[in-house]
C-alpha cells in the first residue's frame, strides 16, 4: 500500500480541485479537493448525507458542479475537463464509467444484451453509423462477434456466464450488482466509479465482489473510485481512502491512516474521540480479518 501523495503527477488519473456543489441554499459539497492515482482502488467514505454520491454525479456529469475543476488524465496523456463535458461524453470520450447506488440495469434485455449495449459507440462506428451495417458492408459483422466475445469474457469474470441469455431483471441482487460492474467495464473505461457496490450483499457475494474488483485493478489496469459503507470492503481492497463529512474532506490517506484518524472516528460515531477509540479499533480490526 502506498501513501497518498498530494502532488499532481503522471500517475494521477483524476484530480478534483476545489469542487463545490450547491442545491438551492444547501452546500452539498464545499471546496473539496482530492486525487485518484492510476491503478489504485480509491474509496470515498463518509456518513450518510456527506455528499459522496453528489461527488460521483459531478465527476460523471449527471450534475454540473457549481465551482471547481475535475481533470481526468488518460494513460495516453490526453486530458479532459470533466465539468465541461455532458454525461454521455464523459463515458464516450474521457472513458469514465459508473454504476448506480440503486442498480440501473436494462431489466427487459438479456444479460448479454446489457453488455452489448455498453459497447454501443464502438459498434456504431463499426456499423458505419448503421448505414453500412444495414447494407451488410464493412467490418460490422466481425466487430459484432468481437463484442460478443468481450461480453463473454466479462460474463465469465463476473460469474454470470450461465445466465447470459436470461433477462437481467431476473437475476439475484448480487448478480445484478456484478452485471452492472461488468457492463460498465464493457465501455472500456480508464476510471471506474462504483456507487456502493457492496450494499445489500451477503458475505459470500461481498467476497465475490472483492475478487472481481481486485481482478479488474490487477488485470485491466483500470483505476477504481468507489463509495462504500461496508468497512470490511473498504479496508480490505482500497489503496487509498478519502473521508467526507458535510461535503468537506476530513481525512485522506491509506486505510490504516484513516482508521486511526480521530476526526474520522468522531464523524462516524458522533461522540468524544477517546471514549470510543478502543471500540472502533476492535471493530475495524475484527472486520479486517
Amino acid at each position, binding site marked *: 500500500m502506498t501513501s497518498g501523495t498530494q502532488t499532481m503527477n503522471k500517475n494521477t488519473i483524476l484530480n478534483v480541485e476545489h469542487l463545490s456543489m450547491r442545491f438551492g441554499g444547501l452546500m452539498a459539497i464545499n471546496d473539496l479537493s482530492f486525487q485518484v492515482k492510476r491503478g489504485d482502488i480509491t474509496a470515498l467514505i463518509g456518513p450518510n448525507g456527506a455528499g459522496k454520491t453528489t461527488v460521483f454525479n459531478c465527476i460523471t456529469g449527471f450534475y454540473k458542479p457549481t465551482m471547481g475543476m475535475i481533470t481526468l488524465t488518460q494513460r495516453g496523456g490526453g486530458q479532459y475537463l470533466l465539468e465541461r463535458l455532458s454525461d454521455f461524453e464523459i463515458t464516450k470520450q474521457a472513458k469514465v464509467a459508473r454504476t448506480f447506488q440503486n442498480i440501473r440495469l436494462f431489466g427487459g434485455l438479456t444479460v*448479454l444484451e446489457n453488455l452489448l449495449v455498453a459497447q454501443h459507440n464502438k459498434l456504431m462506428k463499426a456499423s458505419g453509423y448503421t448505414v453500412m451495417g444495414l447494407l451488410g458492408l464493412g467490418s460490422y459483422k466481425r466487430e459484432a462477434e468481437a463484442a460478443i466475445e468481450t461480453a463473454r469474457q466479462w460474463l465469465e469474470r463476473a460469474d454470470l456466464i450461465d445466465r447470459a441469455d436470461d433477462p437481467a431483471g431476473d437475476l439475484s441482487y448480487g448478480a445484478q450488482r456484478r452485471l452492472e460492474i461488468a457492463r460498465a467495464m464493457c465501455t472500456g473505461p480508464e476510471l471506474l466509479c462504483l456507487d456502493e457496490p457492496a450494499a445489500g450483499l451477503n458475505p459470500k457475494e461481498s467476497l465475490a465482489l472483492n475478487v472481481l474488483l481486485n481482478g479488474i485493478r490487477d488485470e485491466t489496469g483500470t483505476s477504481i473510485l468507489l463509495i462504500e459503507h461496508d468497512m470490511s470492503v473498504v479496508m480490505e481492497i482500497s489503496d487509498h481512502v478519502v473521508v467526507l463529512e458535510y461535503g468537506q474532506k476530513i481525512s485522506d490517506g491509506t486505510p490504516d491512516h484513516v482508521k486511526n484518524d480521530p476526526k474520522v472516528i468522531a464523524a462516524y460515531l458522533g461522540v468524544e474521540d477517546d471514549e470510543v477509540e478502543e471500540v472502533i479499533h476492535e471493530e475495524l480490526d475484527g472486520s479486517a480479518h
Partner: protein
Amino acid sequence: MANSPVTTSEDSSGLMAKAIKEGLFAGLLAFGMFLLYVGIETYQNIDNKLVWRTRWGLLAIFVIASALGRFLVVGFIKPHIDRRKLAKAKAGIPEISSEKGFFHTHFLKIALVALVLYPPLAIMLSGVQGSLKFVDNFGIQILIYVMLAWGLNVVVGLAGLLDLGYVAFYAVGAYSYALLSDQFGLSFWILLPLAGILAAFWGIILGFPVLRLRGDYLAIVTLAFGEIIRLVLMNWTEVTGGTAGISGIAKASVFGIYSFDVGAPNNFAKAFGLPMSSAYYKIFLFYVILGLCMLTAYVTMKLRRMPIGRAWEALREDEIACRSLGIDTVKTKLTAFAIGAMFGGFAGSFFAARQGFVSPESFVFLESAVILAVVVLGGMGSLTGIAVAAIVMVGGTELLREMEFLKHVFGDDFTPELYRMLIFGLAMVVVMLFKPRGFVGSREPTAFLKERKAVSGSFTKEGHG
C-alpha cells in the same frame, strides 16, 4: 360492484346473494347512467326546434342487460374462471407452454405465403370485379395499418417514446406525393422515397426541440404537433386546397412500364388483353403495400440487431443508464423518431396514390389513436402481435361495414357502420383489460450465447416518454 373481499368459501347461497345484490346495484347504476341519454331522445322537429320523446323500452333493455350481465359475471363466470385458475395452479401446469408447434415456428413464412396468394384466391372465389372488396377493403386497408403500426412501433414499442401525433407524418407523406406529383409530374416511384425522406426530415425538425421532454409532456406536445399540421393543411387553402383537399392525384404505375390510367396506351389491362377493371390497380397496390410492409419489417428486425436498435430498447428500459454508458440519448431518440416518421411517410404517399384524393379529414387525432392502439394491443415491440392486432381491430371494424344482414334483424334504420367506432372503442377497452401487455407480451432477444429465450413481458419496461 362494491369492493368486497374475495370469498373463498364454496357457499353457493352466499355467492348467489352477492350476485343478486351486485346485479341489482349494476341495474340501478345503469338506470342512472342511461336514463337521460337512452331513455330520452332529442331530435329536431319540422320547425327545426329541438324536442324530445321517451324511449322507455330501450332504457329497460339497457338496465336489464347491465343487471343480468353483472349477475352472471359475479355468480357464474368469475367463480368458474377462479376455479379453472385454481385447478391449473394445483396441477402445476405452467400457463405458457414453451414448446412451439410447426405453425408457430414458421408463422411468418406461412403468413407471407398466404398474403401473396390472397389476391389470386379472391379472384378465384369471387371473380375479378368481386375481388375488389376483399383486396381493397380488407387487404390494402389492413396492410396500411400494419405498416403504420410497425412504423410507430419503432418510436413507441422500441424506443419507448409516447407519440400521440404520428398521423402527422402520414399526412406529410400523403401531401408530399399529392403536391409534388401534381406540380412536377413526378412518378410514384420517385416520390415514394422522397415522401419518406421528407417525413423523416419533419420528424427531426419536430423531434429536436421536444425530445428533452419526458413522459406525458412529450405525449401532449406530439399531439399538439399532429393537430398543428392538420390545422395548417386545413387552412392553407392556396397550397393544400383546405378542407376540400386535393383530388385527381396520379396513380402509381408498374415502374413506368404499365399504366393504370384508362386512356393510356400502355394501360395494364389493354397490354394483356384483359377486360377493363379497376381491380387490377387494386391488386397491384396490394402487392405494393405488401412489399412496403415487408421492407418495414425487414428494416426493423435488422435494426433491432444493430447497435442503434439495441440503444433504442435500452433507452426504453433506462435512459440514465444509457447515458452512463456513453450513448447520446438525444441522437438515439431522434433516429427513432425519424425512422418511424419515414415509414409513416411511405405509408402516406401510398395512401394518396391509392385514394387519388387527400384531405385533412383523413389525418385526425383518432387515426393516431387507432395506430397507437394497434401497437399497444399487439404487444409493444412485437411485429407479429401488431400485425395480428391490425387484422383483428381494423379487419373487424371493416367487417361491420359488410354486415348488411343485420338490417334484416334490426330493421332498415339499422346502420351497422354507425356502431363501427363504438365497437372499436369497446374492443380497445376489453382487450386491454384482459391482455394489458397486448397479444404478444414477450420480447425476442437480439443476441444470445447458448439459446434464444423469449423475455417475459413482466421484465420489459414501457419507457418513460
